[in-house]
């Protein structure tokens, strides 16, 4: 009964802090808990099982004083009544065992979450009489907006935003990501992470007990967990079926007494319990709980169970290109010169303009230029240069170099280590001092449209080249020197590993992926085509996500999306499923209904699949449970009125004896619960296919299977009972 998650849909990282499997959960504590739960009072939440327990008391009474049940019980069957009563109690126990196991799993999830926010002492900054002081307080005494000092080795007591300082933070306890993360002012800290180096001051953003970890803990502790809409609806079906079977049994009992059909009450009760939807009734709570635990194994925290179900219903998934589809680092691959210049000119200009550009793109430009040997002579003057950092409004960045430049030797083998280049250049600087050509160089690089507006003139083929590059899904960056457009840098997007397959999986399941990107339409189109996405929104600003989500919802579609920035918050709260990145802003995390601790936007797809798995598991167990009833009718009906209407033996297709029929059916009914616990806890396995194929496949396995399996199972139990126990 290994409940590892090998069979869950997406590969998950093995993780020690994740809730343990069945084997580890199957402890003495669980056993005791399951017995405690047998008390009728704690069964009130589960009416089906409460009824089974009531029938146990009735049959137990029949076993003790059969005389009191004259007409519907016979003293000669006393031992049989004991057996029936025992199996009835066993049925209830299996159900409470399943509850206890799921709860244990949830508790271990909650426990591992709680570990993250053990009470620590923290350094609160208070201002007293114009003087700042450090006061040591317990983390539970901190409140929102408090300022705290966190030094090397300290735990971050609560979620907070960095105000001052830069530090390396170890978040491995929270996210499982082992490499320390650099946090600078504006970044958010997760309560429970630890500062590895340096010191920070930060502002607390939540009150104790309100962090999203607290929300998750509340969620997994079942007693506080509100039922999801689907659970509510299934519970109604179960109550409805219970009502129908109650009427049937009461009617049969009435008929039997009035028409002297001589049915034994215990047999009638056995039929009743077999017909009741005990299987789904017993497993329903476990399915919902373990769904949440599975999500946590993916390092995603859901704020409600409903959010997971809704994810399964998603019709549209909005995917940010950067981070979700592409790794986010575009790589420079070519320098394209315009007619008046050479590739070297462009490369050198790119080199200069990217020297101070610490973005992945900037580094990749530098690397390409260095590999091609385009190291400019003006390198040493960079120290005296003036930089224009990237500005979102102009969409350009640049460098202005005044003074003398230096010529560097050409060539060089590999590596993009700037220090090495600098070392090289300093050794030769004395020898060739007077090699400067221009006294002032002004280089600007940026979006082609923006460059177009700042240069005096552009070559006639400017647009053609730009479009040609965009059409291939690459990003053109135009570069100008002293007001003259000299060329284009080609940047290529790198796709995330496995993203194409994931998107294909979404499409086969009938879910529309929509890519959202700030890129130009041509670039967007090409990337979309490369990963197989048919719809994309280009040149989108973060605010556009909101209107896109709203537009899809207006057409009655369920929208799932990810977001991290404050700009994303309105869209995240509008979307039916909003997955926020833990690295994102507090506003985004507040607005979303799930938070990914690992900040991997591609996980939105896993969330959708998990939602589907949860719904399917619930449906499969329900259908299986109901379909089982057919066989149980055929097992028990022939013997129920066996004495009065022997002709009904013709229905006894399984050829069961009176006692064996009742006991076999009851045992099957009971034993199927623990047999299905692993299925309930890990979810049913499925491959992404169309809705109808999934429907057909699961209906055949769990619906048709649900009709056939009990016939076989009951007969096998009967053979065992008759052969081994001579019943």
């Amino acid at each position, binding site marked *: 009964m290994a409940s590892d998650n090998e069979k869950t849909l997406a590969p998950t990282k093995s993780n020690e802090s994740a809730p343990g499997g069945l084997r580890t959960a199957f402890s003495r504590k669980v056993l005791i808990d399951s017995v405690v739960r047998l008390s009728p009072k704690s069964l009130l939440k589960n009416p089906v099982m409460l009824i089974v327990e009531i029938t146990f008391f009735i049959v137990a009474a029949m076993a003790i004083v059969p005389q009191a049940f004259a007409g519907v019980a016979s003293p000669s069957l006393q031992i049989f009544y004991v057996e029936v009563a025992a199996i009835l109690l066993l049925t209830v126990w299996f159900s409470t065992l399943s509850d206890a196991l799921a709860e244990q799993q949830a508790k271990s999830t909650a426990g591992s979450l709680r570990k993250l926010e053990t009470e620590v002492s923290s350094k609160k900054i208070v201002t007293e009489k114009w003087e700042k002081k450090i006061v040591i307080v317990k983390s539970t005494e901190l409140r929102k907006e408090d300022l705290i000092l966190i030094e090397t080795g300290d735990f971050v007591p609560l979620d907070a935003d960095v105000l001052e300082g830069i530090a390396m933070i170890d978040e491995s306890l929270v996210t499982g990501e082992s490499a320390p993360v650099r946090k600078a002012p504006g970044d958010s800290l997760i309560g429970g992470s630890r500062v590895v180096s340096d010191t920070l001051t930060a502002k607390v953003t939540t009150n104790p007990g309100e962090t999203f970890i607290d929300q998750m803990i509340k969620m997994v502790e079942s007693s506080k967990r509100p039922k999801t809409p689907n659970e509510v609806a299934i519970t109604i079906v179960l109550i409805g079926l219970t009502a*129908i079977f109650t009427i049937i049994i009461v*009617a049969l009992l*009435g008929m039997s007494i009035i028409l002297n059909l001589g049915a034994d009450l215990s047999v009638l009760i056995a039929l009743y319990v077999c017909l009741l939807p005990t299987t789904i009734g017993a497993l329903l709570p476990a399915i919902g709980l373990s769904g949440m635990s599975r999500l946590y194994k993916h390092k995603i925290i859901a704020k409600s169970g409903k959010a997971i179900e809704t994810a399964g219903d998603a019709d549209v998934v909005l995917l940010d290109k950067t981070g979700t589809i592409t790794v986010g680092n575009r790589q420079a691959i070519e320098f394209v010169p315009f007619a008046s210049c050479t590739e070297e000119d462009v490369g050198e200009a790119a080199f200069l303009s990217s020297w101070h550009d610490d973005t992945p793109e900037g580094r990749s430009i530098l690397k390409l230029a260095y590999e091609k040997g385009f190291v400019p002579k003006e390198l040493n003057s960079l120290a005296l240069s003036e930089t224009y950092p990237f500005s979102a409004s102009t969409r350009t960045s640049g460098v202005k170099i005044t003074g003398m430049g230096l010529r560097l030797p050409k060539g060089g083998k590999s590596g993009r280590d700037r220090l090495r280049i600098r070392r090289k250049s300093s050794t030769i600087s004395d020898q060739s001092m007077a090699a400067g050509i221009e006294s002032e160089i002004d280089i600007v690089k940026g979006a082609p449209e923006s460059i177009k507006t700042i240069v005096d003139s552009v070559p006639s083929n400017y647009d053609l080249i730009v479009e040609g590059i965009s059409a291939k899904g690459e990003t053109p960056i135009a570069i100008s020197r002293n007001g003259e457009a000299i060329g284009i840098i080609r940047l290529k997007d790198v796709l995330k590993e496995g993203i194409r397959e994931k998107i294909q999986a979404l499409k086969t399941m009938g879910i529309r992926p929509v890519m959202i990107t700030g890129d130009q339409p041509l670039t967007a189109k090409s990337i979309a085509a490369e990963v197989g996405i048919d719809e994309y929104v280009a040149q989108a600003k973060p605010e556009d996500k909101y209107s896109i989500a709203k537009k899809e919802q207006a057409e009655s579609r369920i929208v799932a999306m990810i977001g991290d920035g404050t700009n994303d918050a309105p869209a995240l709260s509008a979307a039916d499923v909003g997955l926020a990145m833990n690295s994102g802003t507090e506003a985004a995390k507040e607005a979303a209904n799930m938070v990914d601790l690992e900040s991997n936007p591609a996980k939105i797809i896993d969330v959708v699949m998990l939602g589907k798995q949860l719904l399917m598991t619930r*449906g499969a167990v329900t259908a299986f449970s109901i379909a089982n009833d057919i066989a149980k009718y055929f097992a028990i009906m022939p013997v129920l009125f066996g004495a009065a209407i022997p002709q009904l033996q013709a*229905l006894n297709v399984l050829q069961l004896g009176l006692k064996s029929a009742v006991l076999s059916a009851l045992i099957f009914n009971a034993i199927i619960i623990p047999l299905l616990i692993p299925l309930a806890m890990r979810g049913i396995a499925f491959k992404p296919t169309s809705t*109808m194929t999934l429907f057909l496949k699961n209906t055949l396995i*769990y619906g048709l299977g649900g009709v056939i399996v009990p016939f076989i199972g009951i007969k096998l139990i009967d053979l065992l009972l008759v052969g081994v126990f001579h019943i």
Partner: protein
Amino acid sequence: MIDAIQAFAVIFILGVTIFVARLLAPYITRVYSRVPSRLDKLLNPVEKFIYKICGIDPNHSMGWKQYFLAGLLLNVAQMVIAFLILVFQGKLPLNPMGFPGLNWDLALNTVISFATNTNLQHYNGEATLSILSQMTAIQFLQWTSAATGICMGIAFVRGFIVDSKNMGNFHVDFVRTITRILLPLCLIASLVFVVMGVPQTLSASTTLTTLQGTTQTILTGPVASLDSIMQLGTNGGGFYGANAAYPFMNPSPYSNIFMISLMLLLPTALIFVFGELLGKKREARPLLWGAYIIFGIALALAFIPNIPLVAQGIETRFGGFMSNFYTVTTTAATTGSVNTALSAMHPLTITSGFLGMFIQSIPGGKGIGLMYMVMYIIITVFIVGLMSGRTPEYLGIKITGRDVKLVMVAFLIHPIIILIPTIIAYASGAAAAIGVGGTSVGYTQILYEFTTSAANNGSDFLGASGNTPFFNIATAIVMFIGRYASIAILLALAGSMIGRKSGGTTGLKTESPVFTIVLVASIIILVVLAFFPFLALGPISSFFRGLMNGF
């Protein structure tokens, strides 16, 4: 078993019926969407006049409660009038045979029976009712109950139409159903019946001298028109106590086939109307094929035993085959007219009759069968739909807990109002009082009595022997609840669909053949789960006892 020619005949008759229903559907759809038609010139003034004298505002729209109450109120008013006519028929004109007024319990049973489209008859028509009673209380209620059923079905469909705002106007629908659907169709059908030899006259009887020289009184009346409305309106109440077994009602195998077709015509046409009104014609597929596949299974069940050509209680004009076919159809369409003594039928035929009445939608009564089928679809979509990995949705609308509650209650009503009265009938000694014992045969009769009442079918074993206060009142209550409670709940369901988001195209494709098969399996499983033990005590037990025809 039946031979190939008979099998072909069955398929041909059903095929033609479905085909004609398909042709009729666009016309019916236009009637309810109030699309201008060529009949307007003739009928508009008539309808306007009716609206005027009744104070109906044809542009007033109703919510589901208002619509339902309008229907219920109208029906109850009609019941009261019919009740008075039946009780006082002795003092009223058009009573050439001088029949006395009916007992209050029989009159109550009869008016509820006819107003609920059940037409359970605890009396022999020709020996109990005056011409006035036949024409007003009986035939009048057959028209109004049929029209009410159709209206409720149409209102139900309107709830599922995307962007619909309300259920329409009951009074307008009611008037238009009679003027534009029932009247023209009955006119045609009556003419066909007259051609086939069914009498249509206002004189009550013809006295003639037989070959032996004795005089014989032959009871006649407006039989052809009653024939058409009783079959078209899935009513089933006959002019004569022997119903469609009586030569003047059903003179030949041809009229018998025509009756089978008429019973199925409107329920089937309304299934197509469902698709057309929704603007999603394909959505009619699971309803149509679901209904006819189960109907086929019911027929096959009835045709399993060797059918004798001549047997006690079977009309020699039709023989076993046609009698079986007719009996299964009359229960499947919940019409309840009979062309044979039920007690002459094989237990398997009776079992398949039970099946039709338990399900009530293969294809069921006009309008009502449709509502029940949608109920089964929603239950099925909910139970198996989750297995497609999405929240179950029907017609793009997500099924919520409240919807499930309503369909479960609608489904629950049926077993309750069948099983509980059956026990009471035995426990109170009412069954024994009319000589029905506790054997499988007797049990079958009592179970059938309440099943036929609950399903608003009307065929029964008891007939005039059921004319006791217990059975009159008990079945009246069952008929009333079986009709109005179910309609109210299902209309509430449809009403709650108004204004709901409907969009998802990625969900379960209910129009696919796969879904139809799952639907059929699910309906059979649900019905077997709810009723199997009782069938086992009744007809199934009779079957295994080796009781054959005439059991």
